[in-house]
């Protein structure tokens, strides 16, 4: 079973090979990286097969570790742990990674530094695989930070322009804020449990509720940073400045999922401290709702998907908060596939429409059949429509919520599902129906379509495996209850209908000009007839619009304001600091030097040159000493 370590090391070796090359050579050495990730995929599938009957109840199928540091009695090691959760994640990461790398062959082939792009991609894949396979929290933290670096490099890939540069710095620093919490969590864990190993920390050590709460809250804070939960979500929308396939890999499937994976791994500690679970649920549900609402207002297609990711991650946190490890992981898996599919689709759409703004898109369905089909499957999966995977995993979460009795959260989750359906429909109708505004719409290259096809297939059929997935993870799983399935289906349906109502029928508005000249009076009547629409429009659509506008304003002014405000405060703090340095401390130092010089000048003037003055002073000193002797009676 030694090959399991190779899964993570192969992309790392690819990175090591690519880095020292010069730009020209590296651009031609791209296949090295693709080959590495494909082999890793194969090995992951083999490992998955090895673990397939599943149901091992959490103990590791394969575990090997190497100590790299000994501190007194404590040994810190790097290890590989294969158990059902990591097996699943392995397949997900390598599958999406391969899809993205193949897709990028087409998407990035004209870019001057494609070699560097692939190098960072393979380093990222290696770090994610290392994280998934890690057998202790320290190794997880180290992989976590290396991933932060890769996201910085990928977001800021086109660093000639200002926007990517600012976005990458913002991304790195915000996630780093989370990492401070994570590091402190590790420190507390080390102080109480004395080690980082999963075996010791999760199973052997008897956690006191108070200590467990602090550790889990700190770990949660770290996860919120990486998985862009409110309020640490501000960096994800800006991170769209990076190349789309990179966003597909990082901001859909893997990196953002790392936060969820961390909480999943540390769930035993969360369960000891009840408080942590409820906090996770609250964070999750607020993020789901807020993310959804914000997604509904964005005009940039990638920003919509970004906010959608934030919302779906919120869902996963809700699942974990409710204690549903299986539901959370299952939604993570399904989301990884259909969200990366949507991102890749968005890439194709942007390539074709040469813009990211949805208002300038329309009518792509006619010209790009394959993309439309795959994108539709992805959208329906996201919206949670019946046969597609999104429906099943979202349903699992709703059943867990209902089952655990969190009715308020259940209602909010349903509202979030409704909002999701609305923005999916809005996106779909804006892009695919309506007048085609850009001239030459042609289908993407084949190496871009194949990965999308594969992902679409998976998103379609993986839904049917939910009970088997539960057994695989060692829990008993059964088909979701019919009642909950029906409610979620209806909510999704209403959402889609509203979306169609507001955005689907736009055809009438856009080509009204020719219709108006001919119909003249008829047109006015029609519009009059539609007073009902206008009023309806006025109350529901406009109300909804205003709420969304207010929210995004809130997001821009308050949350982003705080972050930028902190930056400004920090910058002025540094100005004050350097002032203190130059004037206060240095002032004191130079002050004493000039003081001594002034004292010297004053003392020097005693030497007046008069001999009698000298004699006088000397005898005066003598007499003083004599008087002192007399007084002391020596």
């Amino acid at each position, binding site marked *: 079973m030694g090959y399991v370590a190779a899964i993570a090391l192969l992309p790392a070796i690819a990175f090591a090979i690519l880095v020292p090359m010069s730009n020209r050579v590296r651009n031609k050495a791209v296949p090295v990286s693709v080959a590495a990730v494909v082999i890793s995929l194969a090995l992951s599938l083999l490992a998955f097969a090895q673990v397939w009957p599943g149901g091992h109840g959490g103990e590791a199928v394969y575990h090997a570790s190497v100590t790299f540091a000994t501190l007194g009695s404590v040994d810190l090691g790097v290890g590989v742990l294969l158990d059902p959760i990591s097996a699943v994640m392995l397949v997900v990461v390598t599958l999406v990674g391969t899809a993205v790398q193949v897709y990028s062959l087409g998407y990035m082939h004209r870019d001057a530094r494609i070699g560097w792009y692939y190098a960072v991609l393979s380093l990222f894949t290696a770090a994610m695989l290392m994280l998934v396979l890690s057998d202790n929290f320290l190794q997880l933290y180290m992989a976590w930070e290396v991933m932060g670096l890769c996201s910085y490099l990928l977001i800021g890939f086109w660093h000639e322009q200002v926007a990517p540069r600012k976005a990458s710095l913002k991304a790195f620093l915000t996630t780093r804020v989370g990492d401070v919490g994570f590091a402190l969590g590790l420190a507390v864990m080390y102080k109480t449990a004395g080690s980082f190993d999963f075996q010791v920390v999760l199973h052997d050590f008897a956690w006191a509720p108070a200590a467990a709460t602090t550790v889990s809250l700190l770990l949660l804070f770290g996860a919120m940073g990486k998985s862009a939960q409110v309020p640490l979500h501000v960096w994800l929308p800006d991170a769209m400045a990076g190349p789309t396939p990179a966003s597909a890999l990082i901001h859909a499937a893997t990196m953002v999922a790392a936060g969820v994976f961390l909480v999943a791994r540390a769930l035993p500690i969360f369960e000891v401290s009840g408080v942590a679970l409820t906090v996770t649920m609250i964070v999750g549900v607020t993020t789901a709702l807020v993310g959804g609402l914000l997604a509904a207002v964005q005009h940039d297609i990638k920003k919509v998907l970004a906010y959608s990711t934030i919302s779906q991650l919120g869902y996963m946190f809700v699942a974990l908060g409710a204690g549903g490890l299986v539901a959370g992981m299952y939604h993570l898996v399904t989301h990884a596939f259909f969200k990366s599919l949507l991102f890749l689709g968005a890439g194709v759409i942007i390539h074709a429409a040469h813009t990211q703004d949805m208002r300038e898109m329309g009518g792509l369905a006619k010209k790009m059949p394959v993309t439309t089909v795959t994108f539709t499957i992805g959208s329906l999966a996201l919206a949670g429509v019946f046969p597609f995977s999104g429906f099943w995993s979202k349903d699992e979460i709703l059943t867990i919520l209902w089952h655990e009795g969190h009715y308020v959260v259940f209602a909010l989750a349903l509202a979030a599902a409704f909002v999701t359906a609305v923005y999916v429909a809005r996106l779909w109708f804006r892009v695919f129906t309506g007048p085609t505004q850009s001239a030459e719409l042609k289908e993407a290259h084949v190496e871009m379509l194949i990965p999308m096809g594969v992902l679409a297939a998976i998103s379609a059929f993986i839904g049917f495996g939910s009970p088997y997935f539960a057994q695989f993870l060692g829990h008993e799983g059964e088909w979701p209850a019919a009642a909950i399935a029906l409610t979620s289906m209806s909510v999704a349906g209403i959402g889609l209908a509203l979306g169609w109502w507001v955005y689907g029928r736009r055809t009438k508005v856009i080509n009204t000009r020719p219709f108006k000249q001919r119909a003249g009076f008829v047109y006015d009547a029609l519009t009059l007839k539609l007073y009902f629409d206008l009023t309806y429009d006025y109350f529901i659509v406009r109300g909804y619009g205003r709420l969304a506008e207010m929210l995004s304003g809130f997001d821009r002014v308050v949350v982003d304001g705080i972050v930028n405000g902190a930056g400004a405060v920090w910058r002025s703090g540094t100005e004050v600091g350097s002032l203190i340095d130059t004037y206060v401390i240095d002032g004191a130092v130079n002050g004493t030097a000039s003081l001594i010089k002034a004292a010297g000048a004053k003392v020097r003037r005693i030497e*007046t*040159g*008069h001999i009698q003055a000298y*004699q006088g002073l000397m005898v005066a000193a003598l007499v003083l000493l004599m008087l002192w002797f007399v007084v002391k009676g020596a």
Partner: protein
Amino acid sequence: MTLLQPVGLLSFMALSAVLFSLGLYGALSRKSAVMVLMSLELMANAININLVAISRFSAPAELTGQIFAVFSMVVSAAEIGLGLALVIALYRQRKTVEIDSMQELKG
């Protein structure tokens, strides 16, 4: 009257102290280098009186005081010789023996 009671070591040492103080006053106040040198001679003289008196009253047999006085005289003679040579050399340069004029070196 105390003066008339037998003249002991005290009176001699008192005399020498008075003389020494007068010499000290002279050395401190006079402006002319020669006057200062003369005052210094006065002080040397006082010390010699003191030495001889002590030798006479405490240990006349050993004569150490008197010998000390002789050597003190020798030294002060040498000093006055050297001092006057210096004063004359300085006079040749500065045309004055006034100590106050000698202020070029200061600070």
